[in-house]
């Protein structure tokens, strides 16, 4: 298979990156509501949104490459178990860099990372939940001329078809049963 172009890779990464980036505005709003100065809030939003967007994009690329299976939660949880603490560490360092001109690390980095790893489960659940709903529609738009997107899209399509067939057969079985009972009554 030919190596995908940068444009194709960018498109494959977009849904995950968008979900990851969403954490940025969330942190920004949180900081503003907390009464933090606007520059501090902006710095924290950018510093958290950026690494999470990169990691979210990376997730999409790994899934497109077949490394992560679509819809399975365990690899997503493992990915964020490593990724979320690193993103938070980058967040702390970047905020320091943006505000005081040098990266600032938390006082107990090991404890900090361990704590963030626990919290990563929640983020992984939210991420997985959103990704499985956003990705199929997006892949449908970008699949033409993008073999990896096409392959992934076909997976979701097969699943949707199986669900649709099951629903249709139920509907037909019920219609047949109604018709039979109608005849019996007449």
């Amino acid at each position, binding site marked *: 298979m030919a190596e995908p172009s940068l444009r194709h890779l960018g498109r494959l990464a977009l849904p995950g990156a968008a979900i990851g980036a969403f*954490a940025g505005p*969330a*942190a920004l709003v*949180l*900081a503003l*509501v*907390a*009464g933090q100065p606007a520059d501090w809030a902006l710095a924290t939003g950018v510093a958290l949104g950026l690494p999470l967007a990169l990691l979210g994009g990376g997730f999409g690329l790994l899934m497109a490459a077949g490394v992560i*299976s*679509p*819809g*399975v*939660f365990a690899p997503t949880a493992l990915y964020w178990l490593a990724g*979320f603490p690193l993103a*938070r560490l980058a967040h702390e360092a970047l905020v320091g860099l943006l505000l005081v001109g040098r990266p600032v690390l938390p006082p*107990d980095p090991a*404890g*900090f990372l*361990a*704590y*963030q790893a*626990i*919290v*990563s*489960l*929640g*983020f992984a*659940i*939210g991420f*997985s*939940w*959103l990704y*499985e709903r956003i990705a199929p529609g997006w892949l449908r738009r970008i699949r033409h001329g993008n073999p990896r997107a096409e392959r992934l899209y076909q997976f*979701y399509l097969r*699943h949707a078809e*199986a*669900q649709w067939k*099951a*629903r249709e057969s*139920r*509907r037909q*079985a*019920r219609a047949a049963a*109604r018709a039979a*009972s109608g005849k*019996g009554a007449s």
Partner: protein
Amino acid sequence: MDASSSPSPEPASSTSPPTATATATASDERVWRAGRLEPMPIRELPKAPPSVHLLGPTVFLVALGVGMGESYMWPRLVLIFGPEIRWLFLIGVTLQAFVMLEMARYAMATGESIFFGAARVFKPLMWFFFGTAILVYIWPGHLSTGAAAFEQVTGIPWTVTACVGLILVGVLFSLAKVIYPLLESLLGLLIGLLVVSTSIVASMVGRWADVTSTLSGMFHFGYLPGEAMSATWFPVIVGAIAFAGPSGMQQMWYTLHLRDSGAGMGAHIPQIRGLRHAGEQEAMPSRGFMFDTDDPEEMKKWKGWRRWVTFDALLLFWGITMLVTVSFTVLAQTAVRVNPDVGDLIREGDREVALTAMADAFASAGTPVLHGVFLGFIALIGLNATLGLFDSFSRGQADMTYHFVPGAKRFSMSKLYAGFLWGVITFGILILNFGPADGPGAILDVLAFLSTFAMGAYCVVLLLVNNRMLPKPIRPGILQNVVIGFGAVFYLGMLIYSLVRFGVVI
């Protein structure tokens, strides 16, 4: 003769053949006879969905479960007794995970709700749950607490928010073409917000030391300080254990959601539609279905469904409940670290005072955002609870009415659902404006007692239904039976002990 119109003259399944090869009717259709109600025709079990659909109906349960227990009751107990008290939470939430798996066993094997299963064992059991649901769940207390928190954040009077919220819930559910997808998306979004926001807040304000003490507190089995064994606190602790995860009748309603989402044999049952589309409602079968448990292929599919529900249950229910509650406890410990007097404040105050005290304590921690965030969560939880509880209540009551009240079948299930929904909304609005939202003070104890009693009772019902109404190959194992049996003794025992020793219920 059609099997579905031929009530079984045979006694309960304990005397029936042990597997679903059960018996054949005059039309040669194979059926499974369970109890004295109509036998269940044998149909094909659909395949379990691929893992893409793993995030399924448990969303509802989580929506209902991640409520006051996680956000308020347990953090409050931790503030007073220390994190060591959380071992009781671990027991409560683990017990609920087992209950959930066993509820799903019956619902997925038959496409029937657990209420129907209870009626197959002994009809008055079902009527007990019908009456309890009305007595316990018509009071809009959960919404009023959320609306009160919303008032503190926005200044909008709580009665206005609560009434608008109630009407909004009714309109949304009545207009839905098919209720389930709407509810799934809506609650999924709200829960997603709650979980992601909690993760980010906890990630930014918590500390490793808080979480280690929270987690290690869960393994201090047997820790009960003297004060916990007092008339003031023991009933509160019993209530908090019962409210760890989905409480009251929420687990029973979960079986309706499983059925309506087409899990297992629920695939053969039509979905409930909103009132606006009630005319399109397919005929609701008068009983569920069973699959051929003698067929290895069918049993393979059954194992797939059990894996699906186990993952669903453990990941979403156990995982999220633990995450949210650990996060809130971390917040509570942050509050204590900054304001050591908060424990005394909470000891003295009632619910509202305690909520404000916790919010204030968070604010005084140097992170004023926590004041708004905490109250915002309480408001969101109130809305979530209202959406989930009103929908589930209406589904459950409509299900029992449709199948067991003579003459009710001339209305469609959707119309009955709408009737109960608007009934509870109308009552809610009247109570919010003219009466006590939590119910008349004089019967509050009775309602609390009934709610916890129902939990003990459904453990007993589960044991009876799953061990007597299902074919042998798909009955629960010894471990499941022992845990559910322990649940019955635990809930009923604590309740009765509280009543006898202290003369009070929760």
